[in-house]
């Protein structure tokens, strides 16, 4: 046992131990590099940090809905003069939320939650899918929390009965 505090973990540096030469991290740091190209009068947008992913996406969705609504009203107004416009297919600008792939409608074969092989069976008590009786033996020995972990890998949130 080395004496406590006797050895300090060395920074993976190129053998520099004197404090005069900076560490590798110090060498790689660009904090003090000059940045003449930056506008000194720029003040940070307060909006910058205020929003998290959820609000950004929510906003995006809301904006999309509002835009579609105004467009619809506008077209209806235009259609009063020119009824053919209604039949014209309007190409909407796709947005981030619009291009999201739809939920799957193709049935997929079930996979064994333990082994990943094909799973023709489901354990009624845990809801785990399994390949054969050998895997079932293992499922029977699983604690409920581990069974839950297996389910959550498949994205199944367990419902407390």
């Amino acid at each position, binding site marked *: 046992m080395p004496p406590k505090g006797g050895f300090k973990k060395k920074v993976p540096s190129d053998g520099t131990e004197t404090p005069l030469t900076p560490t590798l991290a110090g*060498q790689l740091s660009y904090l003090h590099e000059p940045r003449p190209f930056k506008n000194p009068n720029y003040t940070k947008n307060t909006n910058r940090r205020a929003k998290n992913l959820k609000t950004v996406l929510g906003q995006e969705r809301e904006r999309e809905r509002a835009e579609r609504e105004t467009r619809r009203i506008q077209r209806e107004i235009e259609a009063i003069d020119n009824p053919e416009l209604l039949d014209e297919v309007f190409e909407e600008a796709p947005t981030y939320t619009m291009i999201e792939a739809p939920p799957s409608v193709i049935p997929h074969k079930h996979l064994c939650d333990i082994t990943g092989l*094909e799973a023709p069976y489901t354990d009624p008590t845990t809801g785990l899918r399994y390949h054969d009786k*050998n895997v079932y033996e293992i499922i029977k020995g699983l604690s409920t929390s581990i069974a839950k972990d297996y389910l959550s890998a498949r*994205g199944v949130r367990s419902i407390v009965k």
Partner: protein
Amino acid sequence: MASETPPPLNIHALPTTYLPTQPPTPEPYAPHRAARTPIVIDNGSTTLRWGFGTSDTPAGGPNAVAKYKERKTNKPLLLFGEAIDVESGARGQARTPWEGDVLLNFDALENALDYAFINLGIDTPTVDHPVLMTERLCSPLHSRALTSELMFELYSVPSLTYCVDGIMSFYQNNLPAPTDPFTENGLVISFNTASTSVIPILRGKGVLSLAKRIPWGASQASEYLLKLIQLKYPNFPTRVTNVQTNWMLHNFCEVATDFHGLLRKLRDPLNLRNSEIVVQFPFALPVTEEKTEEELARIAEKRKEQGRKLQEMAAKTRLEKLSQKETDLQYLTNLKESKGSESRREWVSKLQAEGIDNEAGLDEVIKKLEGDLKKARKKEAGEVDDGPQEDPSFPLVDVPDADLDEEQLKEKKKQKLMKAGFEARVRARKEKEREREEREVQERKEEEERDMDFGGWSRKLRQEQEALMAKIKDRARRKAALTDRKSAAAQARMKNIASLAADDRVPKAKKRKGAGEDMFGADDADWAIYRKINTAAASDDEEDDLAQLQMIEQKLLMHDPTFTPKHTHAALTTQRSALMSAFRPLYEEGDIEGRTRIHLNTERWRVCEAYFAPGMAGVDSAGLAEVVQNLVPAFVESRSRPGTLDFPADRAAVVQNVFLTGAAARLPGLAPRLHAVLQSLLPPGAPVSVRMAADPARDAWRGMAAFSRTAEFAAGHTGVTRAMYDEHGGERVRRWWGGNWNGELPEDARDQRMDVD
């Protein structure tokens, strides 16, 4: 694990961490100063790449920055990219501009862009270069607005053009002649870090209205792999990190052309074993002190020496005691003999000095000493002392109490007790002997039976063993059933308890008459019910059964050569199926090397399969094949609803010409799988080509650089100028073939040229 012939394992060691290289020295800025050379930035969520449009390859690094204070010098540091890995303290402080699939952290983006512009060597008061930059397909306007703000207000760029990385990679791999417009058709599948996008390109233009984004990318895949590994190895000695699973994903995982066919093949444990890849994590063997033979011999010698010394000492004390006793005896016999020669009083006082009351006492002591000496001598001679051979006599026991005085009565009581003890011992001995004899007889009988009809004997024992095992199994099953409140066993138990507790097992009226009395307990078997309803106490039957089982198994093991340790109950219950041991081979307790191994088999394909079925990893979204399938009607006339398509030939070419880009496009097997998918979707005989970008990771940047050199870019009809930004805000873009459509400039502003002056 006892396997017959273990095949050589396909072991791969985890890569050791490497030190980051110093950033490349930037090319001299002089030729670009005031030349307005376009700057091309590929702002990817994993990697940021930058460079002047005139260079061949971009500079770049992981898109992350870390600001932290170095503990030794107390100096603040700012690190970008690979440099973050230098210090563990910095790793915790790392910030990325991207949050999953969305550009969100603009402090980090500013720091990263600073690094890029410093690296480009820009020393003018503004970044006086048109910028061509990637953004996410149909980027959220919030991200774009803040990026534009940084570019125009902080770096003061003259113009900014956004493009979609997948389209630019496609462009790079289908470069038109310098003067020709881009008119290629194709279906770009862009494998990004946190998503996968499918972008149809018709006549050189991205048809973004039909583009789709699947929220599954390499980061989700490596996270899924991590989750699977954690479930497979819940007690793994070291922490498996995302970086490590990412390495596994890119090195060992594949897309199966026929996933379900492959799974059927892997059902065979042998195939499963052959498909496995073993990842060896670093481990440290415990240091065992190796002793040389000489040392061992010396230690043994020393121990022997000590033993000998102890023995000698014990013998010496024994001898001393013996001689002491001998002298005592001598003295006392002398004393006894001297009785005649001395006066009575003197003699008695001498006796009393020795602690003896009278002559009888003296005799007793002498007798005892003689007995001791005899015993000791015998022992020394190596004989075993069997104790008094003759039965002790109890003369007073049979004499009636009336004939005895007080002293004798006491003696009689003592003798009675001793007699009872003696008789009990004799009885026990006899019993033992009888048992032994019985056993011998039985063994002889069994032996005869065995000799006469070995098959029958073995069959009988095996049947017994099986019956016992079935009994144990039954008990276990019942126990398991009782944990479920609704099971038949549990319900029956509740019924039993209820009926036992009920007072009126016998109707009251009958009881009063005295007829139909409660007969519970008349039969001993009635009490078994209490045993049956008791779930908590471990039953003694269990232990008895196990003991008997062990006995039977021992006999079988001894005499039946076909009964091996594999057939014992213990072995059978701990046996793992071949499939499970192929899926996750077990290593023994002390095997540290083996216990720091991860065996990958089905996971290698399962993780990649999630690109085609994200649902299996809990992402409710259509997979790649389904998304492509949904696209087909828009491009193949025979598959679409009535209504003619524009440019039918070009449209058909779009889905026949699949192009893969993005770092994860390198997953082996992806192209053949997509080829098979398309062939099943398109009319028979349709030519299908699936191509991968020459350099899936960097071709987007190269395509952008190539585009920045064209007259089309120089003409300035693709980007937004500072004036436009000031007028319309940071969300607005011009719609062009390689960019997004959302946030298009209002119609009246579209015709303005991009030049600034």
